[in-house]
C-alpha cells in the first residue's frame, strides 16, 4: 500500500482474506468506487465481485493516468543524495538473502558512481529485507532500480507461450526412448526467482541440457528467466531451440501452477506408454516413474513453502529434485548413501529375486551449493535401473563429460553406475575400462532387472 500510495496508484483488493484493511465497496455502484479512487478520496477498496473489479479497475486506470504522469519518484541525482545518508552499518547486507555488497555500492553512489548499484539489479531478488533493516529508511530497491533505469525500461523479452499439458500423442512419441534411456532425461526447471546469483544461471542449466538433447521443461519464474537471458547475438533459448516435447526441445508449460503438467507428463508415461491404470494406483505409478522415467526437477531459486511443496509433489512420485543453496534452509533433504549396497535393491519382476541396482537415483531431494554442482548432479540423477545398455551409455557420457568439465576429473563413483562393459560410452571405452579395473569393478554385480519395489508386481517366482 505504501509503495502504491507513493506513486499515486489506487489499490483494489479482491479477496477478503487479503484486503489490506481497505473499505468494502462491493455493494457500491462502480461509478461511485471509480470516483472515490480517481479523486484520491480513498487509497483503495475491497471489491469481491469480479465483474465489478474488472470495470472499476479499467475506468480508474484511465482516470488516474494523467494524474500519475505528474507524479515523479526521485531522479538519478537524488540517488547520490540518498546514498550520503547511508551509515555503512551493514544491516542491509546482513539482512540480504544473497549477501549482496550493498554497502560498497552505496559508497560508490555517494561519489556519483552508480555502476555498482546498477550491477545489483539482476542479482537482487526484490525481497526488500534490506529496506526493512535500514536504520535510516533508505529506499534501497528503488535506488538500485533507478541506477539501472535504462535496462529496466528496455526490459522486453520474447517468451514461448505457456502451453499447458503435454499431449497424449507427444507421450506416445517419446515414451519409449525416455523409459529405455535413449533420450537421456527430462529436466524440469521450476521454482521461485530467489536465485543465489541471478536468473542467468537457470538459462545456463537449461542450455547445458538442451545441447545434450535432454527434454527441458520450464514453468513460472524459471520460464521467464530463460526468456530474459540473451546470448551475444541477442537471442534467448526460446529462439534457439524448438518447443516440442522431444529431445532438445524447450517447453514452457506455463505459470508455476502449471507444474502439475510436468509431473502429469511423467504420470502419462506410466499410463499411456506402459498402460498402468491411474485410478487408485498411486503406488504403482510412483514405482514406475522412480525406476524408469529419467526425469529430474531443478528448483534453482527454491524459496517459498509453495516451491517446497511442488518439489514434494515431484519426489513423492519418484522424480528427484535439486534445489539451489537456499533450499538448505528447508532443513529437510532426502539423501541416499551410495556406498551402502543394502539400500539399493529392487525386485526383479521377471523372477522375484531381490537384486542390487546401484544408487539410481542417488537422492530424491538435494540442495546444491553451486550451479556447476547442480548441473553435474542433475545429469547423474537422470539414471534409472531400467536404462538399456545404450541408454545408460548415453547418460554416463553426459555425467562423465560434465564432471570432467566442472570438477576437472573423472567421477570417483563411476563404478557404481556401470553394470557391464556395454554400458561404457564407446568414445571413452579405454579410459573408463582402466578406471573400472583399478577400482575392483566386477561385471554384472549391478543387475539390469525389470525393476519394481512392489512385491505384488512380481510376475513369476523362482
Amino acid at each position, binding site marked *: 500500500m505504501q509503495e502504491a500510495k507513493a506513486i499515486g496508484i489506487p489499490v483494489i483488493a479482491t479477496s477478503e482474506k487479503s484486503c489490506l484493511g481497505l473499505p468494502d465497496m462491493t455493494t457500491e455502484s462502480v461509478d461511485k468506487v471509480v470516483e472515490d479512487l480517481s479523486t484520491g478520496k480513498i487509497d483503495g477498496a475491497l471489491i469481491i465481485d469480479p465483474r465489478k473489479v474488472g470495470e472499476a479497475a479499467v475506468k480508474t486506470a484511465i482516470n488516474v493516468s494523467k494524474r500519475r504522469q505528474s507524479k515523479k519518484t526521485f531522479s538519478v541525482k537524488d540517488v547520490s543524495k540518498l546514498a550520503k545518508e547511508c551509515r555503512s552499518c551493514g544491516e542491509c547486507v546482513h539482512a540480504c538473502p544473497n*549477501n549482496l555488497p550493498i554497502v560498497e555500492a552505496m559508497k560508490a553512489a555517494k561519489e556519483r558512481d552508480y555502476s555498482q548499484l546498477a550491477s545489483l539489479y539482476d542479482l537482487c531478488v526484490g525481497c526488500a529485507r534490506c529496506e526493512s533493516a535500514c536504520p535510516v529508511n533508505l529506499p534501497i530497491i528503488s535506488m538500485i532500480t533507478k541506477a539501472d533505469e535504462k535496462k529496466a525500461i528496455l526490459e522486453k523479452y520474447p517468451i514461448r507461450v505457456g502451453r499447458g499439458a503435454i499431449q497424449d500423442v507427444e507421450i506416445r512419441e517419446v515414451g519409449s526412448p525416455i523409459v529405455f534411456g535413449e533420450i537421456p532425461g527430462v529436466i524440469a526447471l521450476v521454482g521461485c526467482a530467489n536465485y543465489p546469483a541471478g536468473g542467468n544461471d537457470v538459462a545456463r542449466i537449461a542450455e547445458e541440457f538442451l545441447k545434450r538433447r535432454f527434454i527441458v521443461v520450464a514453468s513460472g519464474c524459471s520460464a521467464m528467466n530463460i526468456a530474459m537471458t540473451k546470448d551475444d547475438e541477442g537471442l534467448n533459448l526460446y529462439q534457439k531451440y524448438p518447443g516440442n516435447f522431444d529431445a532438445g526441445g524447450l517447453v514452457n508449460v506455463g505459470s508455476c501452477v502449471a507444474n502439475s503438467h510436468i509431473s502429469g507428463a511423467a504420470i502419462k508415461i506410466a499410463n499411456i506408454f506402459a498402460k498402468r491404470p491411474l485410478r487408485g494406483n498411486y503406488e504403482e505409478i510412483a514405482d514406475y516413474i522412480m525406476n524408469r522415467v529419467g526425469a529430474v526437477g531443478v528448483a534453482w531459486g527454491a524459496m517459498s513453502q509453495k516451491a517446497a511443496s511442488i518439489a514434494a509433489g515431484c519426489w513423492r512420485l519418484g522424480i528427484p529434485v535439486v534445489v539451489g543453496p*537456499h533450499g538448505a534452509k528447508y532443513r529437510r533433504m532426502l*539423501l541416499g548413501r551410495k556406498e551402502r549396497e543394502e539400500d539399493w535393491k529392487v525386485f526383479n519382476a521377471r523372477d522375484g529375486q531381490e537384486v542390487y541396482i546401484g544408487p539410481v537415483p542417488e*537422492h530424491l531431494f538435494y540442495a546444491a*551449493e553451486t550451479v556447476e554442482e547442480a548441473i*553435474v548432479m542433475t545429469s547423474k540423477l537422470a539414471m534409472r535401473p531400467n536404462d538399456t545398455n545404450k541408454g545408460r551409455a548415453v547418460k554416463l557420457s553426459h555425467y562423465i563429460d560434465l564432471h570432467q568439465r566442472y*570438477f*576437472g576429473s573423472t567421477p570417483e563413483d563411476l563404478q557404481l553406475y556401470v553394470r557391464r562393459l556395454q554400458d561404457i560410452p564407446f568414445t571413452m571405452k579405454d579410459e573408463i575400462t582402466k578406471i573400472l579395473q583399478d577400482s575392483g569393478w566386477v561385471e554384472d554385480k549391478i543387475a539390469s532387472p525389470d525393476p519394481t519395489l512392489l512385491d505384488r508386481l512380481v510376475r513369476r517366482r523362482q
Partner: protein
Amino acid sequence: MMSGKMILGQTAEIPGPKKAIILPSAEVAATMIKKAKRPLLVVGSEANKIATKDGDLVDSAIRVMKNRKITIVATAHLAMEFRKRKVKQIFSMPLMNLGDRLRDPQWKGLDGKGRYDLAVFTGLPYYFE
C-alpha cells in the same frame, strides 16, 4: 559441530537441527584444531573469492594441507580450483553428502580411517550456517 560438548549453538529455523558454532577468531579455531585428534577442514565454494595472506582461501588450504595434520575436503566443484593449482589428491564431496555422513556414527571418514572429532567449515555461502 561434531563434538557432543559443542552442540550448544543456535538452533536452526525449525526444531531439531542445530546450527554450527560461528567462531569469534582464528585463534579459537587453531586451539580447537590443535586439541582435536581427527579434525576435518571443509572448504566451500566461495574459497577462491576470499582473499588471504597466501592469495586466497584455496591457497591457504593448500598450505595447510602440506602440514598433514588436518584432512581437507572441498565441497561443490571447488576441487577444480585445487587441481588447477597442481594439487592432484584432494578429497571432494558435495556439502549435503558430507553433512549426511558427518552425523552418522558408523561413517569411516573420507580416508576410511574413522570418524572426525571436529569439523571446521570455511568458504561456504553464509546461508549454509
